[in-house]
């Protein structure tokens, strides 16, 4: 199992070709994905064609850049022209988009080879991928456990060697949490750094597309390809995109790291806490200075999220009405048709969030719930502003626990609690990465989270790379027979 930078180095040296690598990944998917369940759609023909074009560019000594010929997977939330895009929902099971999402287009122009579309919680609502209406995905480190979610498909695919990298989305933790559970690197960029055009919307003010990689260098390369202003997304930030790989090896000497009291809670897994504390000491040993910081609104972030995200989702998902695309169940009139279509097409968690969102936005409750949640969101943002006046990065666990068993979190609130350490960065829009920082005694990966200032992905990645270089957690791979 090789990283993207190892693969592209091998292409350049002529040791292998994008077509050979693509064939190897497709064979591995054919052999192992029955066990893992990462993919919803495998696009072998397109992959072969894209790989042959990349072969030719390397043959002429003119690769497109650092991702040319990189076999990758996309969470099935990104629209792909001519390739079905399901959002792991029955309501979109046969939807074939007429256009590519901006990030899909950018990856294709960078020469990346799309192997296929990977599984997720339906409409990205969940933390285990168990809410997929189409397939069960298993954690490559322990097939009885979940890969995390909602981007469980791409995380599991990268961890299992079924893709060299991938793209997911993070609305409440949906890149960083599955990255932690699967022992890979996952980055949530600054809100607006990466275009949302062509991303099936869940909660528009919180949806962040971002990369998965086997290591920090690959993650930085993927971010570099997808970041940047897009006139098709009005919330996209018009700021120059730095070369995220340029400063990666500069180390952490002199960086001030904040350790937030509120991210080490009583109920958390002792092995997670121990591993993260050791990881923070490693960063200190590399020359970073540590400082205690407080993010006092953290305990309210989860409740705030479960008002704002469902409210936005209930509006966004109103478009699934059985008229323009997707499932239609006939009814006696328009409203009956819509109501039956949505009842048949959405799974239980999606219905729950639509109901919750509709309720908190309904007459009489708007100010008490939605208005108040938006104000508390301001408090969460102010916490980060105050912390980043004193420190360059915040270091914390990605999740309070490691991958759990399928069916273990049947209670919705128990599931939601998985995201307590990831939600605040989504609400503030600041970038965060999860990197592997150890394993439990039973062999399950643990994630270290680094959160930075808005648009300062470079420092987040540089510190993550410094940690990675000093440790070997990221080189461990699950054994899949």
């Amino acid at each position: 199992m090789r990283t993207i930078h190892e693969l592209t180095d091998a292409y350049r040296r002529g040791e292998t070709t994008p077509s050979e690598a693509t064939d190897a990944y497709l064979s591995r998917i054919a052999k192992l994905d029955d066990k893992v369940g990462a993919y919803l759609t495998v696009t072998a023909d397109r992959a072969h064609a894209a790989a042959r074009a990349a072969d030719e560019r390397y043959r002429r000594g003119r690769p497109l850049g650092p991702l040319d010929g990189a076999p990758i997977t996309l969470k099935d939330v990104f629209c792909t022209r001519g390739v079905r895009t399901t959002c792991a929902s029955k309501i979109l099971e046969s939807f074939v988009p007429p256009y590519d999402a901006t990030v899909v287009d950018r990856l294709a122009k960078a020469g990346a080879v799309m192997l296929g579309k990977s599984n997720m919680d339906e409409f990205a609502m969940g933390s285990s991928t168990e809410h997929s209406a189409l397939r069960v995905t298993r954690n490559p480190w322990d097939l009885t456990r979940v890969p995390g979610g909602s981007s469980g498909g791409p995380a599991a695919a990268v961890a299992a060697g079924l893709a060299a990298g991938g793209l997911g989305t993070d609305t409440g933790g949906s890149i960083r949490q599955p990255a932690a559970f699967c022992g890979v690197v996952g980055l949530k960029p600054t809100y607006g750094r990466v275009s949302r055009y062509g991303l099936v919307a869940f909660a528009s003010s919180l949806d962040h597309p971002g990369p998965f990689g086997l290591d920090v260098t690959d993650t930085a390369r993927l971010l570099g390809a997808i970041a940047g202003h897009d006139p098709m997304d009005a919330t996209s930030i018009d700021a120059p995109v730095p070369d995220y790989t340029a400063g990666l090896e500069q180390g952490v000497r002199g960086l001030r790291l904040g350790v937030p009291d509120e991210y080490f809670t009583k109920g958390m897994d002792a092995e997670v806490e121990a591993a993260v504390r050791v990881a923070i000491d490693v960063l200190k040993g590399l020359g970073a200075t540590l400082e205690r910081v407080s993010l006092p609104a953290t305990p309210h972030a989860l409740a705030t999220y479960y008002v704002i995200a469902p409210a936005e989702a209930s509006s966004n998902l109103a478009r699934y009405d059985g008229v323009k695309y997707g499932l239609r169940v006939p009814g006696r009139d328009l409203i009956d048709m819509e109501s039956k279509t949505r009842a048949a097409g959405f799974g239980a968690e999606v219905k729950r969030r639509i109901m919750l969102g509709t309720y908190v936005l309904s007459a009489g409750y708007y100010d008490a719930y939605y208005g108040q949640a938006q104000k508390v969101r301001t408090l969460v943002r102010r916490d980060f502003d105050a912390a980043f006046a004193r420190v360059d990065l915040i270091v914390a666990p990605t999740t309070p626990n490691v991958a759990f068993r399928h069916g273990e979190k049947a209670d919705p609130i128990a599931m939601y609690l998985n995201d307590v350490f990831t939600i605040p960065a989504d609400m503030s829009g600041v970038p965060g990465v999860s990197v592997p920082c150890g394993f439990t005694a039973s062999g399950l990966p643990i994630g270290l989270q680094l959160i930075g200032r808005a648009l300062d992905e470079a420092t987040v990645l540089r510190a993550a790379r410094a940690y990675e270089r000093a440790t070997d957690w990221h080189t461990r791979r699950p054994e899949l027979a």
Partner: protein
Amino acid sequence: MISRDDVAHVARLARLALTDAELERMREQLNAILAHIDALRAVDTTGVEPTSHAVPQFNVMRDDEPRPCFPPEDMLANAPDRAGDFFRVPRIIEE
């Protein structure tokens, strides 16, 4: 606490045809979630401005110039039911 009638009302607003069993389960689960969310009401937000987006951006403008758009056939390709270049829906206005 929200009642079963409240849940049925919200389900109508949300255009979700829920069975009796689903309504009851939804009532229990929404009450449990709302009990958790209710803690927000105790947070002092006096004088705090609401945040609707992490990155405040206003009035993003572009030149009003015609641009190519998707051909009707592409837009209709996923239609569950169509009549010519139109989406077909059940009759809305009574004769």
